[in-house]
């Protein structure tokens, strides 16, 4: 651009200067040479091409970055889903409907992420016997494991452990605390760097 804007006025000035004065006109300057114009255009073209390539690369990099960010977001979301807790009814180890919906999401992620292994921790609220609650916590963890393996996931990808009432999430002797404490928790024990979002 700069080149063209500069060259045209200079040529015009030379022509005007040549038409004035009584002196024998000097030999006309050689017309602008064809090869010169060509090289100029070639130069201009190469600049344009480089410009375009750079732009394309930038766009591609941006797209790649966006895709990576999107995937990282999806992986993070998958990890959050894998680690999300499920909750149980009082004195029960049966999988509730809300828990089943969440566990199905975990199944899809686990299928896409064959290296991932989980520890399932069963917890109980403080009511009832401490030792019974250990058994209840184990039953809850086992119920979750059976739900997951029921979808064809390998048994050896899951370990279970009960903490009974010993590790409450929320202190307090009221239904709100108890409901939070009757739970299954999930710890990723292997393949944390190989999580893939559900297909």
């Amino acid at each position, binding site marked *: 651009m700069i080149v063209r804007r500069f060259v045209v006025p200079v040529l015009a000035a030379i022509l005007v200067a040549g038409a004035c004065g009584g002196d024998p006109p000097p030999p006309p300057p050689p017309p602008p040479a064809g090869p010169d114009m060509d090289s100029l255009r070639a130069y201009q073209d190469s600049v344009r091409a480089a410009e375009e390539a750079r732009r394309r690369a930038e766009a591609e990099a941006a797209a790649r970055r966006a895709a990576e960010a999107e995937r990282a977001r999806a992986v993070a979301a998958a990890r959050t889903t894998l680690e999300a807790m499920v909750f149980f009814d*009082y*004195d*029960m*180890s*049966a999988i509730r409907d809300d828990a089943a919906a969440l566990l199905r999401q975990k199944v899809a992620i686990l299928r896409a992420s064959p290296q991932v292994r989980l520890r399932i921790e069963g917890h109980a609220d403080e*009511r*009832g*016997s*401490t*030792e*019974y609650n*250990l*058994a*209840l916590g*184990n*039953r809850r*963890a*086992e119920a979750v494991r059976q739900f997951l393996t029921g979808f064809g996931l390998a048994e050896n990808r899951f*370990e*279970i*452990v*009960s*903490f*009974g009432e*010993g*590790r*409450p999430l929320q202190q307090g*002797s009221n239904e709100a605390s108890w409901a939070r404490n009757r739970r299954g928790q999930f710890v990723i024990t292997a393949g944390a760097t190989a999580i893939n979002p559900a297909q």
Partner: protein
Amino acid sequence: MRGMTMYERLWCRLAVVACLAVAGSAAPASVGAQDQIPGVSLGLVYTGSYLPALAVQPFTGRFGGSGLAPQVETIVGDDLRYSDRFEIINDLPGGFVRDEVDYALWDRLGAVWLVTGTLEGAGDGYVLLLELHDVVYGEVRERGRFTVPDPSDADYRMSVHRASDEIVRWATGDPGMSASRIAFTMRGFRDTDSLTYNEVYLIDSDGENLVRLTDFEDALESPSWSPDGSKLAYSSWKSGYPRIYEMNVDTRVERMLPPVRGAGDYITPTYSPDGRTLAFSVLGSDSRSGIFTYDFDGDCCLAYLSGGPWYDLSPTYSPDGRWMAFNTLRFGDAVPQVMLMPAEGGQAETLSPYAYGNGGYFTSPDWSPLGDLVAFHGAIERGRYHILVADLADNGRVLRQLTSEGNNEDPSWAPDGRHLVFVGERNWGYGLFVVDVTTGRVRAILAGRRVGVPDWSPALLPR
């Protein structure tokens, strides 16, 4: 005359307790006919046993024992009160009692028994001379000498408790329980990750001498005494998964029992009465869940007693070692039941009153060291737990309810087979309580702490 008055007073108190029990059970509207368990009667039923009056005359001192004599007398007096076998006479006006034993005076005051004591300085410690007087016959029934170390010695209070237990044996022929300790868990809070944990603590039977035994800052449950009182087995999560450990109480040397079953939760250990076997439960094992035994002599020979796809846990041996009571979830999640079976495994029968479709909730059995009773706790109404005892003589069809207030869990028998320690939850918080099964008297020995799974030691002999 005095005896009649005591008797009447006791009956008045029992009547009040019974009325409270009736009021308590009638109040909740949620308890409908279908919540009642057929053929089982629950109630705060106490034998209206007559408690003889026992007086403790102020102890005297000789050869440098006078300074400590009043403190020793207080420990003995409290032990005898906590034995719940006597009405204690101790609020006498000063100067009322002379050094000479005046049987006529004690008879007028209604005393049946009189305890006198003299503490003598002897070497680094003391000798406690005790006499039990029969006031009615006006004579000394028993006397004994007891070595008491200096109060700076860790065994000081326990040595006095042993003397108290001897007085109980002189007067009643039955063992006492004051020379004993209770192991239990108390909750702590880990600042680094905001997780709660348990440590094992010990406390003497009279609520004194609270000490922490472990320092793992991790989940831990079910401390259980060895029959000689030297070791505790428990379940600790410090490896990431619950495994059974055994610790020497004096040296605090610990070892893990080999997890020969592989994966699973290893929980609820209990020693056989001869100390040669440890029974415990493995849950969620790769193969079979249930109750196993471990042979200390052979350091081997794990035996599988019961279980299957269901869950059996919390075993407890009969004192002759031939039977075992345990808790099972085989009837379903919310209806844990107490069952009995031979100690080597075999056909199991329910002890708690299970009725299909209306099973009730009964957990945490503990077999009395006298063999006649099994204590456990149960949900009398949904979400409310009380301490119950089943008499094996009538197949557990009559359950006696020992608590009426708050929630009450995890009973464990004292060595006298008459007292139970349990965890009580009241509106002010949690605590360790002791109930006398005969009189129904309840006392708190540690209040306001988040405690769990108490286990009462056997009678502790001098080390």
